[in-house]
């Protein structure tokens, strides 16, 4: 039993790390742009498919797909920002319109992946050498450990960026007060584009890591990752990147532990119920801002 629990814990942290990244990128988008990205899950899966494609076509090990995904998604995010967001902010009801826009994007992305890859589940048959590593009494696949390591690197890099560099601090300032940031002379538009592009880049990398950690993915997997993303940022407090990180790990552990003790179907409901419960009972999440009408 303890072995199972420990297993759950270790995997929970690994999975939680991924969820933390999910939350981080989603939180970045919301914080700076007040855009709730309904298409986030599909973006992430897009990253998984990029890794898959590169592996199948060029035999590229998934780790090398990381920079490819990062760069290409960053560029895509930058372009997408300028294409989509300026129009949105001029509309009557930017909040609702941004949901709908991203809703549309999620459908379009899922459909594109469907067209390109078909509906079947895919996986990347890459194995590290050795195939698994022993952490205490628990055996974890090396791929997962590598994924965790990468997660930590990305998180640290983002942390350094947000707290130690000028653009990063400006970004955090913009999250707290957009108008004020504009008034002191910072180009908020460029900053927002940066946030958008960064969020996309992280999402893409998260996708590659998901391909390493989870057994399979399909164009339809996007939806569940979007939900997980929402749960994480709500728990952590909307617009709070640090909160999102902590909440991500917490949720990952909770989810994996739930699957140890509960049947699969119930475990899924737990996720949703946690989301609803948090919003109703403590809408500001563990660390966040205003939620009521």
């Amino acid at each position: 039993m303890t072995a199972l629990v420990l297993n759950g814990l270790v995997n929970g942290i690994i999975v939680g790390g991924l969820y933390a990244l999910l939350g981080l990128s989603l939180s970045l988008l919301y914080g700076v742009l007040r855009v709730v990205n309904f298409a986030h899950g599909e973006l992430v899966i897009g990253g998984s498919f990029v890794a898959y494609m590169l592996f199948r076509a060029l035999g590229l090990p998934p780790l090398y797909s990381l920079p490819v995904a990062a760069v290409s998604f960053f560029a895509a995010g930058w372009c997408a920002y300028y294409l989509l967001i300026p129009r949105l902010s001029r509309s009557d009801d930017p909040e609702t319109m941004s949901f709908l826009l991203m809703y549309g994007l999620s459908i379009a992305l899922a459909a594109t992946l469907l067209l390109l890859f078909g509906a079947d589940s895919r996986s990347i048959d890459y194995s590290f050498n050795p195939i698994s590593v022993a952490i205490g009494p628990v055996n974890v696949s090396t791929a997962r450990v590598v994924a965790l390591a990468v997660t930590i690197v990305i998180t640290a890099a983002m942390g350094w960026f947000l707290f130690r560099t000028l653009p990063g601090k400006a970004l955090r300032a913009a999250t707290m007060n957009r108008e004020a940031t504009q008034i002191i002379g910072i180009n908020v538009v460029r900053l927002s584009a940066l946030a958008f592009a960064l969020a996309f880049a992280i999402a893409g990398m998260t996708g590659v890591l998901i391909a390493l950690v989870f057994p399979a993915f399909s164009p339809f997997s996007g939806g569940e990752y979007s939900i997980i993303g929402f749960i994480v940022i709500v728990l952590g407090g909307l617009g709070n990147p640090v909160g999102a990180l902590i909440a991500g790990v917490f949720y990952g552990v909770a989810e994996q532990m739930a699957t140890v003790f509960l049947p699969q179907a119930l475990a899924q409901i737990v996720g949703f119920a946690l989301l609803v419960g948090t919003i109703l009972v403590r809408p500001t999440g563990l660390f966040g801002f205003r939620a009521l009408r």
Partner: protein
Amino acid sequence: MTKPPSPLALADREHGDRIYRRLAVLLGAAVSIYFVSVPLLGLNVAFHFYMMLWVTMATAFNITSGFSGYMPFGYVAFYGVGAFTTAVLVKKAGFAMFVALPVAGLAGVLLSLLFAPTLRLSGIYFAIVSFALAGICRLTIANLPEEITGGSFGLQLGSRAQPIFAFYTMMAVMLAALLGVLWLSRSRLGKALRAVRDDADAADMMGVNVGWVRLQGWMLAAFFPALCGGVEAWYTNVVDTETAFNTLITAKTVIYAVAGGLGTVTGPVVGAIAMSWLDELIWRRFPLINLLLLGVAVMLLVLFLPRGLVGTILRARPQWRRYIP
């Protein structure tokens, strides 16, 4: 303090009302005549059935979004619950369809009462919670014992479907929804709802019982999708969690309503009809990229026609607002 208004204002108002009533009657008559004749003229019954379904869904959705200011991304929950209630009552409890359907509608209303605490949430939180609650509904029903809800295979209602009866019932439901929204748009409840939507605290200070008004709008908006789910179950004779709780149902409802324009009666009708036709044409010519085009269409709509067809016209010609239902 209050002296009577000039006779000009009164005459003008009566004139406006006359035009409004005529347009409303025209709309109702056109819609009724067209759909009544579909089976009689041998036109595509299935296509028109679903068109009526989307008109009803978009119209009912307008109550909660256009009039009340909410975006329930889990709107399909009411539809699914209506479908399953109908199926269970007919198949397992032996109810007649005409009894099962209103009960299904009631089930939708009861569900809305259960979800009522979420009405105090703002914009995105409400949307996300709504989405999650629909997920919970789906998973709960999918995991109920097979004897009740058919597990992963779903339920079959009867030995064979009765499409024509279902078709005319759908028409009746659609007309009821349209009448309901027509009434709402002119009624005191409708005004109270919109005031709460625009500024809930100010409405409160003007004497409007915000919570109660919101609840009424919510219950009304939940009744019709539940009926739709029930009638569609009758039409196809089969119900299962994947189709009854499919997120695409919410997606299409939202898109069709927004395409036409929220806040007017004609908006969602126009949107649903136009988009149904578009969907049909595209599906016939490009069946594979249908979904992609839907997604792109939504994005283009949001970027270039955010107020929808009717909404954009009314923005350009605000004086028409009191004439268009």
